[in-house]
């Protein structure tokens, strides 16, 4: 039982990171019908921003984090102007290719600017964690879980309770109709890019103390986040969160009880199973209806 609880806690912690990146994916799919393959690199860029603010400029930790999140928002807008805007009327595929290109560009530009040395960031708290009964609660995993919970609550509040949220929802449902109603559709899409980059960046900053900061860190997370997206339901917000958590728990439990070398296989076996048995995912609409 002790082992189960420990694995469950870790699985939820890692799953929350997948969820956060998956959430960024979903928002862009909904608002702009863009599958952003650079979402993982958003996490990497965010983590490097924190490294620069905290390790190089030596600002306080929380200030560095807040500043990095704001910078990520700005980065998201620039990203939208470069990769999405010029191609927005040419259908989905050119934009997807453009985001793939951007992901490679981002990894290499960081490599050139910062160099290949991986960086170490301390966690939000000085203590590595504490023992609750048989389970060691890693303070960084706890921070990740709490942050994700807060973000989900905030997102729910924005989308359901504010006018901005209503406008965003209207834009994602029907751009033409939203435009006729006087909603600035372009502004809404740019806002979504900014918000999605902030989420991705924050995921990178939160996971940095666990995974270290290296150029390749985004790729590791993004693939799983994308799988989480499919499992939860393509384009579904609660699906992305539950999918991420389920994936983290499934691979950690699979590794703990069945086989460590096949850890990644559990995640992708779960993806395959969903694609075969329930292709619309946990919360998704049927794909056939979308077409």
């Amino acid at each position, binding site marked *: 039982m002790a*082992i189960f609880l*420990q*694995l469950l806690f*870790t699985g939820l*912690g*890692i799953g929350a*990171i997948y969820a956060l990146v998956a959430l960024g994916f979903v928002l862009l799919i909904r608002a702009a019908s863009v599958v952003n393959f650079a979402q993982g690199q958003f996490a990497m860029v965010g983590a490097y921003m924190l490294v620069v603010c905290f390790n190089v400029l030596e600002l306080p930790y929380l200030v560095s984090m807040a500043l990095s999140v704001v910078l990520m928002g700005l980065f998201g807008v620039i990203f939208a102007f470069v990769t999405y805007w010029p191609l927005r009327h040419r259908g989905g595929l050119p934009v997807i290719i453009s985001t793939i290109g951007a992901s*490679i*560009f981002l*990894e*290499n530009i960081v*490599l*050139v600017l910062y*160099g*290949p*040395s*991986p960086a*170490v960031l301390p966690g939000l708290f000085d203590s*590595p*964690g504490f023992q609750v009964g048989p389970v*060691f609660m*890693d303070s960084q995993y706890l921070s990740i879980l709490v942050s994700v919970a807060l973000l989900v609550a905030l997102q729910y509040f924005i989308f359901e309770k504010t006018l901005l949220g209503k406008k965003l929802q209207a834009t994602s449902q029907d751009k033409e109709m939203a435009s006729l109603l006087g909603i600035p559709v372009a502004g809404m899409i740019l806002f979504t890019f900014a918000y999605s980059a902030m989420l991705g960046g924050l995921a990178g900053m939160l*996971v940095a103390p*666990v*995974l*270290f900061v*290296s*150029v*390749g860190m985004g790729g*590791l*997370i993004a693939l799983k986040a994308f799988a989480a997206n499919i499992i939860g339901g393509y384009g579904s917000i609660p699906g992305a969160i539950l999918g991420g958590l389920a994936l983290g728990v499934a691979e*950690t439990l699979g*590794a*703990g009880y069945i086989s*460590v*070398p096949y*850890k*990644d296989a559990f995640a992708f076996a779960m993806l395959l199973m969903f694609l075969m048995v329930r292709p619309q995912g946990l919360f998704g609409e049927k794909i056939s209806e979308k077409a």
Partner: protein
Amino acid sequence: MLISRRHALLGTATSFAIIGRARADDVVRVGGIAPITGPAAEAGRFLQNGVALALEAINAKGGVLGKKMEFVVEDDQTTNPGAVLAFSRLVSRGDCVAYTGSIRSTQVNAIAPDVLKAAKPVMFGGTDPSLTQAGNPWLFRCRPNDSFSARVIADFGFNTLKKTKWVIVHSTDAFGNGGMKALVSSLDAYGIKPVLVQGYTNQQTDFTPVVLAVKQAEPDVVSSYFTFENDLGIFARQLRQLGVTVPWVGSPSIINTTALNLAGRALFGTYGIADYTPDASPEAKAYAETYLARFKAQPDNQSTWVYDALMLLAKAMNDAKSTEPEAIRKAIVAIKGYKGTEGTYNFDEKGDGLRGYNVVRNENGKIVFDKRVEFTS
């Protein structure tokens, strides 16, 4: 992908071009693959530092056959396909007399068939014992192989630390599997069967399941073959967090500069088997001093093996008075008693040059030399 990586590469390639710019017929060119991008990009930088020091040393002493030695590098992207592509680019240039391969066994494995076709000497640093046993006459190893590292780990853990309940944690790639098998058979010689042999795939985000398996096995010593420092760092931190405090004897990655930076306190008190450590010999010490003065950092085996590789190639070509592949090959095999930074090289027909390892301790982040163990075969 190709274009941007090539751009990243261009800067490095240019710097080498500047070091040894000369007319084509005035130089002896050696080609090498290196991880300039990808997870081992930092190791790739260390490798290039080693190359720069070797070229300076060789060319200051008159170069090779009166010509300057030059090095051309291609990015292997820290992947096997990348390594194959990089090596074939080097071969298709047609102007390299010999090559350096990878420190990663899995990549040496990947390029081995092309090495056979290229039919020119390739110096490499991967330690999977099987690499030199497949009858490929062009592969020469500039580090001791893992049959020796495993014997040293087993000897140190059993005879010095007096431990009998062993856990082996290893990567499932060629290097990690090779090391694990060698260690299992070395322990067998002492009548020990490990209580747990735990593999993991490279580039993990979390090691909790591995650490819990180790903890449940209740070992009195942990041994390890880690390929990537990131993995080692995450494992080390989680091992300590979940309360495993028994002695840990690791393969050379445990004392790599990158691993020490990443894992910090979590590696204090561990033991490492090191092919390179500054206090092992006067040559190793001199190299460390030059490296420190030049790059303001401590060197590790990521740069020493390639430094030795180029020095050995220069020596072989000067001894043979030729840059013909077969002549170089024979001259390398004939090298006996050459004192390099990694130890004293005595090449055999198979292409293994070194048969010794150093045991070191991590004392609060400082690597302290314990002893050197040499084997004759």
